[in-house]
Structures are given as structure tokens and as C-alpha cells.
């Protein structure tokens, strides 16, 4: 996973996330560790709530991220994947992970919102 506009490393700060989210126009970013393993997701809403609670631009994102991230395993059947997507109609970024929880790629589900 290199240079994806949809992922960020877990040691990034809120300032970094703001920049990535502003650039990718999807209102969220998938958080991975140094080994590309899926850690969580940070959305616009998560950022807003954190800032209200007193977080600053320098707060590391692992303190505010949402670990309950919806993902699809690359080995999932079409049926299974479709079910997950249907149950979580709200998610805009779909991380696809391999057997080791590593993010292979992130599929944007909706057009970018400008």
C-alpha cells in the first residue's frame, strides 16, 4: 500500500488526517500500522468529536480512531462481500484485506464530494 489517498499510518496526527481527508474528498481515511495491517478508520465526525473534547492538531490519531472498521476479506465470496456491503450502506471507503489483516487496497464506494 503506497501513496494511497485512502490510507494513513497510525502514528500520524490530527493535522495529517485533516490534510488527507481534505484531499481525498471522502470524509474518512483508513488507518494502518507500519506493516499495513488494518487498525481503524477516522471520519470527519470522529475528528469533530475529538476536537470538541479538547484534542489539538498534534494529537496522535490512534487516540481518536474508530477500531470498529468494516472491511472485506479478499477471500470472501461474492455473496458474503455483497452482504457486508449491504449491511453497512453508510461506509464510503471499503478496505479489502488479506488473510493477515493487511490492507491490499481501498475501494471508494461513492464519488468524491467536492
Amino acid at each position, binding site marked *: 500500500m503506497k501513496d494511497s489517498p485512502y490510507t494513513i499510518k497510525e502514528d500520524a496526527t490530527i493535522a495529517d488526517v485533516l490534510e488527507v481527508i481534505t484531499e481525498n474528498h471522502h470524509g474518512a481515511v483508513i488507518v494502518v500500522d507500519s506493516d499495513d495491517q488494518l487498525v481503524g478508520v477516522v471520519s470527519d465526525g470522529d475528528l469533530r468529536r475529538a476536537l470538541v473534547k479538547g484534542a489539538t492538531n498534534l494529537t496522535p490519531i490512534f487516540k481518536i480512531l474508530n477500531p470498529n472498521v468494516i472491511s*472485506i476479506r479478499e477471500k470472501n465470496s461474492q455473496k458474503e462481500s455483497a452482504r457486508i*456491503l449491504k449491511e453497512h450502506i453508510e461506509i464510503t471507503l471499503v478496505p*479489502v484485506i488479506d488473510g493477515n489483516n493487511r490492507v491490499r*487496497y481501498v*475501494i*471508494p464506494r461513492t464519488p468524491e464530494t467536492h
Partner: protein
Amino acid sequence: MTICVKKKITVVITNRADYGRLLPIMRAIRTKPNITLQVIIAAPNFFNNFLWPLRHGKLFPALHFLWWHLSIIVLSYLDAGNEVDSNYLARMLSKEGFPVDARIPMIHKGGSAEAMISGAGVVLTTIPREFKRLGSDILLIYGDRFELLPVAMVAAMLNIPIAHIEGGDISGTIDESVRHAVTKLAHIHFPITEKSRERLIKMGEHPKRIYVCGMPALDMLGETNYSLDDFYIQNSIFQGSQINLHEPFALIIYHPVTTRGEENRTDVEILIRALTRIPLQKIVIGSNRDAGSSDTLDPLWHFALTQENRSVFFKSLEVSDFYRLLKNASVAVGNSSSFLREAAYLGTPVVLVGDRQQGRERGTNVVEVLHDADIIVEATQKQFEHGRYESDPRFGDGTAGTRIADVLASLDISQLPIQKKFYE
């Protein structure tokens, strides 16, 4: 009056793509009373590779083949596109009423360079016997696949004149070298376009033996029924989706570019980003299995899944079904060569993404873009608004098969110099 001797024209078919491209020519040749058509299938089959060695006490080659054969059978169940080509080819040929005069055991599904080379080696050792037995007068071969090289080499050594279709083209990968090498071994050329003809002359081929006939695959387009009315019934993949083929849709094919390595992943991500912004229904067709395909195939499959009922994904399609979609698509986006050729004939607007087809001749229906989401979206929008183009005849007018057969039928082989001379 000259005495008419029946010419024996031998075609060598190595895979189903070959078969599809040769079919219009073979059909036309069959109608010529002075030609006997002979067909060699250069694909592995069970008898030659297993039973024969077993009967002759060669246990190791037999077991080696059995293992390979079983793995292919298993694969064919897992992946419909991976059927054992030899059986498929034989079935298709007999369905059309063509003979199978010889089968040579060539394994070309190894996926590695070593497997390709040893496959070519098997052709070299087995095909001379078949040429001699069949008494071929002319060898007719198509295209630029690697396995053509040993076939052409054997025919050249046995002084069998070679007729080659689609020479003078330009493309990437090893195909480029194979195509031009076969040109230098061939005696009669059937290039697709005028430009290819000019290149053949530059390569020292005699203009008198170059016949521009167009692309034989286009012959099939004339007889295709383009109605999509029964498409849903025949393709169960539409069940449950809300795709309406009578509403505008975009056709997407993106093949990996072997020379781009890891960049394939980024290229596809950009394409997907663009696709989310294109408000048309989308039909995505799986890519070929060249190196890099897992980087392109899987993300596009997942993309189609995330688009609820607005997208469907086909791993592969019957050729006639593919042409139906290509003809009816509002716009085609990607890098398939069919977007340049068949789409030009059909008049489908195309957004050609990336440089996989760099150097290939194209019609007015093609807009070429780089890997940039904004530009892809903009070009697709423009092509959609433009609507269908006039049919572009530069790749042929759908009569290539007949014309090639006419040339072969009227050819006096005794007057064909087998010694090649560099024309300049």
C-alpha cells in the same frame, strides 16, 4: 487452360483466440473447390501425452503429464475461463464441421518463460512429421503469439510457403518481436491496414505478395445479433441486479501492463476513482492473466461489488456476447485492443486509458488519456455526449475472410518463389 490441382492449406491453431480469428477465413476457404483445408491443433491432449508414453513404457513423462492434466482439470472447474483448450478446440471445430488432421502436444499454460520455451521445443520436434504426413502446400498462420515462431521455423526449413495474417502491426511485449520475425519467414502477407503494408515493404517484403484485407474478426460482426433482449436470461449474473441494458451503460476493461509492474495497482486505483464519478451503469469485464493481473482484476471486481446494483462484473464472456455489449455501450473505458479495432468498426466511443496500446493505429472513435482521474472523467463525459461514431473502415469492412480465401484460391504455388529476396 491450366490444370487445377487441389491445394492443401494447413492452419495451426494453438488456442481459442486463434480459433476465433481464423474461423472466418476457414469458413471462406471451405467454399473454395480447389483448396483442401487441413487443421493442426497444437494443444495438449490426453492420448498423445499420457496413454502413448504409458504404452511405450515411458512412465515418468506419462505421470508428469497426468499431474499437469489433473491440475488443469481442477483449474477448469474453479475458473470457467481455464478449460482444457485442446478438448474445447476439437469440440468447436467438429461443431463447425472442420477436420482435425493432427494434434501436437504443446503445453502453453505454464505461465512462465521456461514453460513457454519448452512448449515451443515440443512443437519443433513434433510438427515436422505432421507437415510431411499432410503434404502441406501452404501454411496459414495468424498473429504474433510466441508459439507461432517454432511453427513458422519448421515450415520455412521444409520449404513450405507461409501465409501470415496481421503482419506489420506494432505493439508491445514479446509479441512485437515474434510478429516481425514471422514476417521475415513468411512468403505471403495479409496485413490489416495500409500502414502495416508500408511497414512490411520497409522490412524488405515484396509489395506484390502483400494483400491488405482487413481484420478477419470483423467478418463475425456482420452476422452478430446485437439485440440485448435475451442477454439477461443467458447471463445469470444479472439476477438480482438492477442493471438495465436499455439504459446507457459504460463498458470497462483494464488489462495489466506487463512493463508497469507495481504501478498497475496505482493506475487501477486512479481508474476506479474516476469510475465512481461517472454516473453511468457499468459493466466490468475481467482482464487477461498476464503478469500484474491480480493488481488490476481484483480491485475492479471489488469495485463492481461496491456499486450495489449499478455495476456487474464478468470474469469472461462469449465472443458474441462481448460484441453485443461493445456495440450497445454508450462508451467504453480502458485499454483493450478490441476498443481500437472492433469498436472502430462498430462506432463505439472509446476512452483509451494509459499506454498499453501505444503506437497502435486507431480510429476517430478513440480519445487517449493518461492516468488522471479528472481527465478520465472529463473524456468519458465528452465521449458520452458525442454519442456513437460512424463506422470506421480502416481495419476492414467485414470481408477479410473471403478476400484472403480468394487470394489463396487463385494463387499459383508453382510460381511462388520459395527463396526469399530482400525487396528494396
